[in-house]
């Protein structure tokens, strides 16, 4: 199929998660995305678990392939000046978008800073994401995504009030940012069609993450309230929790946003007498007696399967959802209907699964293709896309500039 980004060339220096997830949207919809790595320093999550058949290898990580589908694999040894020259030629003579998420200063060190590239390619859209943004005292502080939830405040707001906070699983903020980045890059390309001018986009992952806590920030700046983690409780809803269900580690989340939903739940539990119970007659009353309330709901759920609790509640219009494990996600009928996991064939890994986009477009379908092997398309990219002579290519390869 013909992708809507056909003709858009993306030079992708990104690594780990934020950057590669962002550029995958472009390859999903038909852009030519050249993923630059080095044989000496492959992307660190190429060595991230899990591996196909449990055997480690740069082309075997399920973590890596999920974010790099449909891209072309180019290796350049950026310690070699000739490799930096090749990268410069790609950035100035081929690319519409240059994307990177190195520590600020890295691209500049290679002579690939925005100023230099834009001089030769004024239409280039350069996208730079970094932990802390460019400039400022911490710009070059090393670190990876998982620590950012600590700095942003997400960790402070996760866990139980009487306990040390816990971090949201994985590198949570890495995954909330790519959609913002995609919107901005396409916006810059759109503006370029009008003006012919590109621009440099600087995204601080910390600043982007803070948008997702904005009401809590205002609660502090306006009301002076620092706020905190409260397990699963909510100031405006009760019952509101993950309740134990039959089986090992099975839970169902239930949230009653209105008195009516609470009355429906009481009736569903066969305890209509609770509807008149003053302890639970209003949100305020339920909040004051929430421990007792949770006991009652939990005693009902624990005798049933999580799936049954969800179905019974949803039948009555009560918000409820199984606390799904990753196994459940693959079996979830809704996610299956949405084709959330696509299965991709891979020469070394066999079949792997990749996550689909979370929006459906009525007029186009993404094309989920496999992720490249390390350096798989080096010759193709340089000879065909950049138009390099065989002679120069051989010389570069012989000089280990393409490692």
């Amino acid at each position, binding site marked *: 199929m013909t992708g809507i980004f056909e003709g858009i060339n993306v030079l992708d220096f990104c690594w780990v998660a934020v950057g590669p997830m962002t550029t995958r949207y472009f390859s999903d919809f038909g852009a030519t995305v050249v993923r630059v790595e080095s044989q000496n320093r492959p992307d660190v999550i190429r060595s991230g678990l899990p591996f196909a058949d449990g055997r480690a290898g740069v082309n075997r990580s399920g973590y890596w392939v999920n974010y790099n589908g449909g891209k072309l694999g180019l290796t350049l040894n950026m310690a070699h000046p000739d490799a930096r020259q090749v990268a410069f030629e790609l950035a100035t003579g081929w690319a519409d978008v240059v994307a990177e998420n190195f520590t600020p200063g890295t691209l500049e060190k290679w002579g690939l800073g925005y100023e230099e590239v834009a001089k030769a390619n004024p239409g280039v859209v350069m996208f730079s994401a970094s932990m802390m943004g460019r400039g400022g005292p911490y710009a070059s502080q090393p670190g990876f995504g998982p620590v950012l939830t600590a*700095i942003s405040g997400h*960790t402070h707001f*996760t866990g139980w009030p009487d306990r040390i906070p816990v971090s949201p699983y994985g590198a949570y903020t890495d995954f909330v940012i790519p*959609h913002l980045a995609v919107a901005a890059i396409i916006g810059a390309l*759109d503006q370029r069609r009008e003006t012919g001018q590109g621009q440099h986009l600087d995204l601080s992952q910390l600043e982007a993450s803070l948008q*997702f806590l904005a*009401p809590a*920030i205002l609660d502090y*700046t306006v009301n002076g309230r620092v706020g905190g983690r409260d397990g699963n409780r909510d100031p405006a809803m009760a019952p509101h929790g993950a309740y134990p269900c039959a089986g090992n580690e099975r839970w169902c989340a239930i949230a009653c946003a209105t008195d009516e939903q609470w009355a429906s739940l009481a009736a569903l539990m066969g305890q209509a007498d609770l509807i008149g119970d003053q302890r639970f007659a209003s949100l305020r009353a339920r909040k004051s007696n929430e421990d007792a309330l949770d006991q009652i709901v939990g005693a009902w759920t624990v005798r049933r399967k999580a799936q049954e609790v969800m179905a019974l509640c949803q039948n009555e219009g009560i918000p409820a959802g199984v606390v799904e494990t990753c196994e459940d996600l693959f079996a979830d009928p809704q996610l299956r209907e949405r084709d959330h996991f696509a299965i991709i064939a891979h020469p070394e890994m066999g079949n792997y699964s990749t996550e689909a986009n979370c929006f459906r477009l009525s*007029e186009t379908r993404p094309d989920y293709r496999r992720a490249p092997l390390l350096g798989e398309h080096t010759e193709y990219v340089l000879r065909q896309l950049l138009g390099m002579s065989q002679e120069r290519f051989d010389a570069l390869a012989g000089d280990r500039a393409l490692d």
Partner: protein
Amino acid sequence: MLSRYRVIDLADDRGIFCGRVLGDLGADVVKVEPPSGDPARRFGPFFNDDPGPENSLFWQAYATSRRGVTLDIEQAAGRDLLLRLARSADFLVESFRPGFLDSLGLGYEDLRIVNPHLIYVSITPFGQDGPYRDYVATDLTGNALGGFMYLTGDADRPPVRVSIPQFWSLGGAAAAAGAMIALHQRTLTGRGQHVDVSCQQAMARTLAHAPQFWFMEGTVLERSGPFRAVGGGRKMRVNWECADGYVNFLQPGGKTGGGTMKALCHWMEEEGFGEPLLSGTDFGEFGFGQMPDDILEAMHQGLGRFFLARTKRYLAEGALERRILLYPVNDPADVLEYPQLVARGFFREMEAPDGSAMKVPGPWIRSSAGPLATARRAPRIGEHNDEVYVALGLTLEDLKGLRHGGVI
């Protein structure tokens, strides 16, 4: 960046984030809310803890970068006016339950006839089709069905969400990305389309490699509280108590981990917290979490004692100097004072509901081409009725009539 585009934003609290993103990129976003006020205005916290539609800080935080009009789209006159608005719009964003706008004659199929260029964005918990399409959801139940909760929380208590809702914002951000992809396609074809967003899928894309562990190994990852599981039933601490709060330190293993532990042990010695077993160990030899049990235990004990005796700011600043991978667990008060954010001038002043100034988060992206949009506070109810409807060709007399009829 998007200043030549108009967005008609019907989305309530569940889709409010999308218009924010498009507005931050410069689009002219017109929020259309019922005359009684948008449901998002009922969400706390509230300005001075005083509930009221103009005082919702949820609204103040997320309805920025927009103009605001009122319109009762369930009345015939209101429906007609929405069609007029949509005729000249580039995007329409909505977050009603699937089928609701169709029942008013305002569904995608209706609108595409009125305006074939329109990009129609629907944000729902589960999408427009499928067995769960009519399921009701809240942030909590969405976190559950998106796979987030099972992986988060202390092992001996129920799984948890983030106490500040994330589910709808994730969907709203995804909607903005989908809308922009549709815009790009429109430049090629001239036609708009329907963007159907599932917040459940957006949540399920935040799980890092956890789904792969199931698919490739049949392993279901479990939540492990302030620790990280490192295999063999062993755990390494991530969040640590310090003198006045908490810090984040995860020994990363390998060369990087060796360097950071060497610097940390040296620092501890300087301050009288030296641990011979730790100082005498080259952590660079161990992969992530692969040190012997006695060394892991000594690390938990020794580092724990040191951190507990120092404040988070002291530890964070010392770590920065020594290039140790330790970070503060910030609360909102810490965030407001975080030197990097202060240096970048991230927080800005915005008009508060009572006319005073309040500090709010700044933009999430910056451009070498200058500000992407003019900062604009969230609109008051019906604040831009006159300017928007008059520009549409209505007279002030017409507006009086619509007001009288409760349409606006």
